[in-house]
C-alpha cells in the first residue's frame, strides 16, 4: 500500500512539474502570431522568413557564413550598399579616390547608432582593425587583406598603426590599399567592412553575443530578440538616417533547418517567404511549384564544376580532360536532374558577371569533338584503347542531389566515350579534406562569389598551392594576366585581361563547368521591393507589403 502511494505521489510530482512548465510557456508569446492582409489600407508590415540555422556570429568582423550575412545585411550598413547590382553610397556621403586608385577618402553622412551615438569614422577604423587583429580570431580577416598592411598585421608582421585605415576626423575616413583594387567599392558593402560602435565595444567586449541594449547597429533594422537556435526578431530602426524609406516594421527570422517543413510553413501561412536566399526549398517540390506558377527563379553568381586532379593520370593530359568535359550533356542535367532552371555552364565566370558567358567557350554535349579529343589523348598517353585507361573515380560529398548528377555524368561518359567511372562519396568534412590534399581524381565542387567581380572565380586557379585550387594546375600566362589585371585602371581593358585569362582556363580545362547556380523561392504575392543581388544576398530595407 505504502509503495503504491509513493509511486502515485511521484507520478503526480512529475505531472505537476510538467504543468507548471506549460503555464510559464503560454504567457510568453501570443501577440504577433496572426498576420494576414485583411484590409488594403493597413496591411501589416511584418515579414516572416526562415534562415535555416543559428548564425555563426552577429559580429560583422567575425561572421563568415551566409546566415550571419543575411542578418547583418539588415541590421548594419557599410560605406556602400549594393542596389540594382551596383555599389551605391550608404554610410558614406561622398568619396575621393587618388589617381593611382590606392587611396580612398570617404566622407561619412550624419548617421546614428541604434542607441543614438553618432556613427563616426573612428567606428570604421576600429572595426576593421579589430577584425584584422590576430588575437580576435576572425576567420574572414582575409576579406580585409586589400587594405595596406592588412595581411601583415593579421599575420603579426606589422603593427595596428601601419594598417591603411585612418579616421582623419569624426566624419572622414582615409583608406590606403595594398594594390589598386578596381572593385573596392563592392567590397565596402560586404559585412566584414561594416563599422562597429567603438564606444560600446571597448566597454563591453561581449556586446555581440546577445540582443540587448549593447547590441547596437547602424542599419535599417535593429535586433530586438535573439533566442539562440530558435529565432531572431528585427524591428525598424527609428534612428536610421533613411528611416522614412523603410516600410517593414518587423522581421521575424525562424531557424528551421528542414526544406519540407519550410515549404509547409509557407503553405500554411506561417512564413511569407520560403526558399533562397534565406532558406531552402525541397528539390522534389520544384516542378510542382513551377507548374502552379508560384516558383521564382533568379540566376546567381555561382558555378558547379568538376575539378580534375591534373597531376594524376589520365587527367594530366589536356585532351582527356577536354574529351570528358565536352561529353557532358549539361542541358539534360539541368532539365532532368537539378530542375531549378540552372544555366548550362561552358565557362567559369557566371553570366551575372560576364553576360556573354551564357554561350560559353565550347558547345554543350559535343560528342563528336569529345571523341576526337579522346583519340588524341589516348595516342599521347601511348594507349590503344579506352579500356587501357587507368581506373577513374568520381568523388562527391554525400548528398542526394550530388549523387544524381554524378550518376548522370557517369552514364554520359560511358555512353559517349566508353569510359567506365566508379563513383565514390564521403561525408562533407572528409570529402573536403581529400580534395584539398589532392587525394582524388575527379571531384565536384561549387563556388559562389563573395563580391561581384570575375576575379572571385578566376583567382582560385592562379597559384597551384592557392588554398582552393585543388586541381594542381598552374599556367604562367594565366597567372600574369591576373596579376596585371589588378593594376589596370581602365575597366574595359581590365575586363579583356580577365576574359583572356578565362579563355586559357577554358582551353586547358582543369575544371569542367557543369551549370551556373540559380536561386529558387516562393513568396507572398503582395510582398514587393525585396532587393536580391546577383550574389544571392538579400536586403529587406526597401521591402513592403502592398
Amino acid at each position: 500500500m505504502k509503495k503504491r502511494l509513493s509511486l502515485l505521489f511521484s507520478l503526480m510530482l512529475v505531472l505537476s512539474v510538467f504543468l507548471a512548465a506549460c503555464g510559464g510557456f503560454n504567457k510568453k508569446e501570443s501577440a504577433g502570431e496572426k498576420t494576414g492582409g485583411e484590409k488594403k489600407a493597413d496591411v501589416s508590415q511584418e515579414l516572416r522568413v526562415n534562415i535555416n540555422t543559428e548564425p555563426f556570429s552577429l559580429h560583422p568582423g567575425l561572421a563568415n557564413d551566409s546566415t550571419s550575412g543575411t542578418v547583418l545585411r539588415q541590421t548594419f550598413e557599410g560605406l556602400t550598399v549594393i542596389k540594382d547590382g551596383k555599389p551605391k553610397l550608404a554610410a558614406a556621403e561622398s568619396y575621393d579616390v587618388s589617381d593611382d586608385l590606392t587611396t580612398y577618402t570617404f566622407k561619412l553622412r550624419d548617421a546614428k547608432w541604434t542607441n543614438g551615438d553618432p556613427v563616426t569614422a573612428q567606428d570604421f577604423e576600429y572595426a576593421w582593425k579589430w577584425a584584422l587583429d590576430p588575437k580576435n580570431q576572425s576567420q574572414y580577416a582575409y576579406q580585409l587583406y586589400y587594405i595596406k598592411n592588412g595581411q601583415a598585421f593579421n599575420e603579426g608582421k606589422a603593427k595596428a598603426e601601419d594598417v591603411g585605415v585612418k579616421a582623419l576626423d569624426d566624419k572622414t575616413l582615409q583608406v590606403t590599399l595594398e594594390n589598386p583594387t578596381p572593385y573596392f567599392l563592392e567590397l565596402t558593402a560586404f559585412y566584414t567592412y561594416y563599422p562597429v560602435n567603438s564606444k560600446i565595444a571597448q566597454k563591453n567586449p561581449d556586446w555581440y553575443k546577445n540582443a540587448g541594449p549593447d547590441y547596437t547597429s547602424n542599419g535599417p533594422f535593429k535586433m530586438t530578440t535573439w533566442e539562440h537556435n530558435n529565432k531572431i526578431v528585427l524591428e525598424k530602426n527609428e534612428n536610421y538616417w533613411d528611416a522614412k524609406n523603410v516600410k517593414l516594421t518587423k522581421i521575424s527570422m525562424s531557424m528551421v533547418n528542414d526544406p519540407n517543413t519550410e515549404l509547409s510553413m509557407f503553405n500554411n501561412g506561417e512564413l511569407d517567404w520560403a526558399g533562397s536566399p534565406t532558406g531552402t526549398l525541397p528539390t522534389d517540390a520544384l516542378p510542382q511549384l513551377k507548374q502552379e506558377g508560384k516558383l521564382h527563379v533568379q540566376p546567381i553568381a555561382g558555378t558547379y564544376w568538376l575539378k580534375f586532379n591534373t597531376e594524376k593520370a589520365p587527367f594530366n593530359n589536356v585532351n582527356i580532360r577536354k574529351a570528358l568535359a565536352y561529353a557532358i550533356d549539361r542541358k539534360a542535367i539541368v532539365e532532368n536532374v537539378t530542375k531549378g532552371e540552372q544555366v548550362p555552364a561552358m565557362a567559369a565566370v557566371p553570366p551575372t558577371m560576364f553576360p556573354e558567358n551564357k554561350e560559353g567557350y565550347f558547345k554543350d554535349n559535343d560528342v563528336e569533338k569529345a571523341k576526337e579529343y579522346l583519340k588524341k589523348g589516348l595516342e599521347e598517353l601511348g594507349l590503344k584503347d579506352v579500356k587501357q585507361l587507368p581506373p577513374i573515380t568520381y568523388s562527391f560529398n554525400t548528398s542526394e542531389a550530388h549523387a544524381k548528377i554524378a550518376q548522370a555524368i557517369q552514364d554520359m561518359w560511358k555512353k559517349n566515350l566508353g569510359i567506365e567511372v566508379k563513383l565514390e562519396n564521403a561525408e562533407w568534412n572528409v570529402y573536403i579534406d581529400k580534395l584539398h590534399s589532392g587525394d582524388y581524381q575527379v571531384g565536384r565542387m561549387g563556388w559562389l562569389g563573395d563580391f561581384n567581380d570575375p576575379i572571385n572565380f578566376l583567382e582560385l586557379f592562379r597559384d597551384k598551392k592557392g588554398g582552393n585550387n585543388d586541381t594542381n594546375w598552374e599556367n604562367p600566362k594565366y597567372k600574369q594576366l591576373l596579376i596585371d589585371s589588378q593594376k589596370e585602371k581602365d575597366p574595359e581593358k581590365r575586363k579583356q585581361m580577365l576574359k583572356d585569362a578565362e579563355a586559357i582556363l577554358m582551353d586547358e580545362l582543369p575544371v569542367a563547368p557543369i551549370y551556373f547556380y540559380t536561386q529558387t523561392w516562393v513568396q507572398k504575392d503582395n510582398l514587393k521591393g525585396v532587393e536580391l543581388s546577383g550574389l544571392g544576398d538579400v536586403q529587406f530595407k526597401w521591402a513592403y507589403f502592398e
Partner: protein
Amino acid sequence: MLRYISRRLLSILLSLFLIITATFFLMRAAPGGPFSGEKKLPPEIEKNLNEYYGLDRPWYEQYTDYLVSIAKWDFGPSFKYKGQTVNDLINEGFPVSFFLGMEALLLAVSLGILLGVIAALNHNKWQDYGAMIFAVLGISVPSFIMASLLQYVLAIKLGLFPVARWESLQHTVLPALALAATPMAFIARLTRSSMLEVLSNDYIRTAKAKGLSKGQITVKHAIRNALLPVVTYLGPLSAAVLTGSFVIEKIFGIPGLGSQFVLSISNRDYTTIMGVTVFYSILLLFSVLLVDIAYGLIDPRIKLAGGKKGE
C-alpha cells in the same frame, strides 16, 4: 542498498571515463577539422585559430586538459557558434528537449498502457485487434514519416496546430505526438502481453474466487505486476526521448539538444561533441541506475543488495 549504490556510482564513473577517452580519440581520428570549409582559410589564419583553441598542442596535453575541465563541468567554447560555450548550448537546448521528451513520455506511457490493458482485457476481440493494428503501425512507421503526416493532416489540412517551430504549448503538440508514436505502440504491446500472462496466474484466479470485481482485480493485482517490463523499457526510453531526437527536432525546427548533437559531429565542433556526449552518457547511466532502484520499489522480490543470500 547504500553499498549497492556506491558500487554502481563507481562503475558509472569508470564507464564515463572510457566513453570520454573513446570519443576523444575517435573524434580526432576523423578527417577534417572545425575550420575546414568550402573556402579554405589562409594558412596563417588557420594556424592562429589552431593555436587559440589549443589544437596545435600534442594530443596528450589536450586530452589531460580536457579531462580536467570536464571534471570542473566546463566544456569550453563552441567552434561553430562564436561567443557561445558548450555549457550554454546544453543549458539552452536540454530544457527544450527535456520538456518535449516529458510530454512525449507522458503520452506514450499513459496511452500505451491504456491501449495495452484494453487489448488484454478484450483478448481476441475487436478492441484487441484494433489496438494491435494501431501498435504495429506505430512501431513500423518511422518517426519522420509520422511527423510529415501529422504536419500535413493536423496542421495544413485541419489547421489545428502550427506546422513547426517552438513558441507556445500548441507548437509542442505535433512533435510530442510524433515522438511518442513508436514508444507508445511498443508499450501497448508490452503491456498487453505481460497482462495476458499475469491474468492467467493463480493469484488472479484466487482473487476472482474471492469475489473481487473485475475492475479491482485489474487495477490492484494485474496491472501492477504487468508493468514490470514496461518499467524496464522506461529507463532507456526516457534517456532516449528526453535527450531529444535529431529527426523530430529538425523537422519541427525545435531548438533542442538532439539536433545540436548530430550537427556538431558533421561540423567537427570538437568541444560540443565531447560536451554533449559526456552529458548524455551521464543521463543514460543514471537513468539505468534509477530503473534498477525502481525495480526494488515495484517488485519487492528483487533484492538490490544482491549476492548476500548466496554468500
